[in-house]
């Protein structure tokens, strides 16, 4: 992993945004010291202009304004330079502390910074312009009142700009996150569709089913026929599921019943099952083919390895604000993985299910794996009652 080394050896602290960025055109160029210096000059000149305009509105004569303007301009730029220089050095030496200030602390920081910079700037500016001693200038009370007033105004303005910048960034991040969620939902749905298609022609299931039918046709034709019929039901249901974006608990239950019936012919007494979906939940919308992989897992890793087989129960009920769907089996439960095998605990692969739920419901849905007594496991899904899975536009 590369990041720790970067931080430990001192990577560049986050850049400071410039107040001018409130105007969109100034956002075109990325933040850098040269750019920010130019912006500071522009900003300072703008402030100088604004102060002159205010003076003019206050009734000062054009002549006086003309003579005062260069001084105002110089002082403004000196102040601007001081403010920016201070922010830059403080940010670098305190390792990005300035860029991370928030709320009232940031406002106070601005006020403090500008209140110090303005008198110093005025003093320096006057000294440069007219060689007057800065102490003389600073002794005038008017200067201090003027400084504080300007400081509060400018600081307030900078703070508001910073806030709007933050809000913009948050909106952009939210949009990006949203887009990512939609993209990953689409990807997962495409994968699920592919899986469903594969499941229809999934070699072992298809092969075993047909082999069983062949074996039974001569001796027990009625059973063979029943198996084929239920297999056809399963294929039809999974085709429908793989095409649509929405399924209901009722349609999923029908699909699972067909699947389990096919397996029951092969496993006989070793597979018993029960599906329990109350009437009021039959129409509850779920993502297609959500439960089938869980049931398949439960049989392959839970019941198949057990000599006497067991029972699978699929049940749904309302639990507070969620719909709780549980798939329980009385199988072998968690066994230590055979040495050398890569799958933990026999491959109870819930990670795909979890990913799918995360992209469909955000954090509102959850999956838990529980151990049953005396044996077996339960997969418990909690789906939000009032939200249906994000509807995803069908792929072109």
């Amino acid at each position, binding site marked *: *992993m590369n*990041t*720790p*080394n970067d*931080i*430990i050896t001192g990577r560049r602290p986050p850049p400071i945004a410039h107040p001018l960025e409130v105007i969109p055109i100034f956002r075109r160029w990325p933040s850098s010291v040269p750019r920010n210096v130019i912006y500071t000059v522009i900003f300072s000149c703008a402030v100088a202009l604004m102060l002159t305009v205010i003076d003019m509105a206050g009734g000062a004569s054009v002549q006086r304004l003309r003579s005062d303007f260069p001084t105002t301009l110089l002082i403004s730029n000196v102040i601007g330079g001081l403010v920016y220089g201070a922010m830059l050095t403080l940010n670098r030496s*305190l*390792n990005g*502390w300035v860029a991370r200030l928030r709320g009232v602390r940031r406002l106070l920081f601005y006020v403090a910074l500008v209140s110090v910079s303005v008198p110093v700037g005025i003093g320096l500016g006057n000294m440069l312009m007219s060689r007057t001693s800065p102490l003389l200038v600073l002794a005038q009370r008017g200067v201090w009142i003027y400084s504080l007033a300007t400081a509060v105004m400018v600081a307030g303005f900078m703070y508001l700009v910073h806030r709007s910048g933050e809000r913009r960034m948050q909106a952009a991040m939210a949009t990006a996150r949203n887009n990512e969620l939609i993209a990953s939902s689409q990807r997962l749905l495409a994968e699920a569709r592919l899986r469903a298609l594969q499941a229809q022609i999934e*070699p*072992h299931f298809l*092969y*075993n089913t047909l*082999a069983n039918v*062949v*074996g039974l046709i001569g001796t027990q034709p009625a059973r063979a026929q029943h198996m084929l019929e239920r297999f056809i039901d399963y294929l039809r249901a999974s085709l429908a599921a793989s095409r649509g974006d929405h399924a209901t608990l009722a349609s999923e239950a029908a699909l699972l019943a067909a699947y389990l019936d096919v397996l029951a012919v092969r496993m006989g007494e*070793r597979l018993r099952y029960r599906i329990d979906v109350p009437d009021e939940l039959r129409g509850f919308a779920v993502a297609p083919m959500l439960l089938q992989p869980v049931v398949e897992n439960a049989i392959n890793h839970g019941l*198949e*390895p*057990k*000599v006497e*087989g067991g029972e699978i129960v699929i049940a749904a009920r309302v639990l507070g604000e969620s719909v709780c769907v549980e798939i329980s089996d009385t199988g072998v439960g*968690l066994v*230590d*993985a*055979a*040495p*050398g*095998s890569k799958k*933990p*605990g026999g491959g*109870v692969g*819930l*990670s795909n299910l*979890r990913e799918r739920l995360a992209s469909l419901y955000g*954090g509102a849905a*959850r999956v*838990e*794996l*529980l*151990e049953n007594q005396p044996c077996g*496991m339960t997969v418990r899904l909690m789906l939000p009652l009032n939200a249906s899975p994000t509807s995803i536009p069908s792929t072109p």
Partner: protein
Amino acid sequence: MWPELRVVAKAANGLDALRLIDEQAPDVVFLDIRMPGMTGLDVAARLVEGRKPPHIVFVTAFDQYAVEAFEHSAVDYLLKPASLDRLTKSVAKLKAALQARREAPAAGGATAAALQALLAQLGGAAQVAAPVAAAEPLQWIRASQGDQTRLISIDEVIYFQSNDKYTSVMLADGESLIRTPISKLREQLDERQFWQIHRSVIVAARHVAGTRQDFRGRLMVQLKGRDEQLVVSRNYVDLFRQM
């Protein structure tokens, strides 16, 4: 096809098969490979150790790897479902083998050897791995939740934090408490995937987004998709830098 053939017993699983073979001492055994409890290979392995093992014909669903092993073996196999043609061939082979055995009972050793070779090859995956299996790192955590036991896959864990007599297991959708102390967990976890950053905190590497130093100079670990940051204690900072 083979009128003299008498089916003496049928077994539904490996254990019953061994018992019935012991009782009935058949000449030929058709063994399915995939069975609950004991696999057909396990049954065959046991039979080979016996005094006079029966002829074994494996019956298997299509499995590329197994079929290849069978192709190069003297032991016969049948694919499910078996075509009449193929079955006829198998029967012919069996008849010949049984005849040979009647004429030269000692020659049974050759079949046994072929069977052993086949088993070695097919069971090879499991056998090769055995020496590697020292102590597998922890894969599942059992946490009590009310009167039930919740199973948490090690992949779900973001970090462990010790909490008085318990250890807190932090997951994406919540938190669970387990009794195992952090010190014991450390021994059981894969060190490459779980890093101890503090006497009371072990974090999962896959959930670490990065690190930063706060203004006090402490090293902090940032987690992916979560707000909280974990402090790396001084004693563990050096360990961390090496990664």
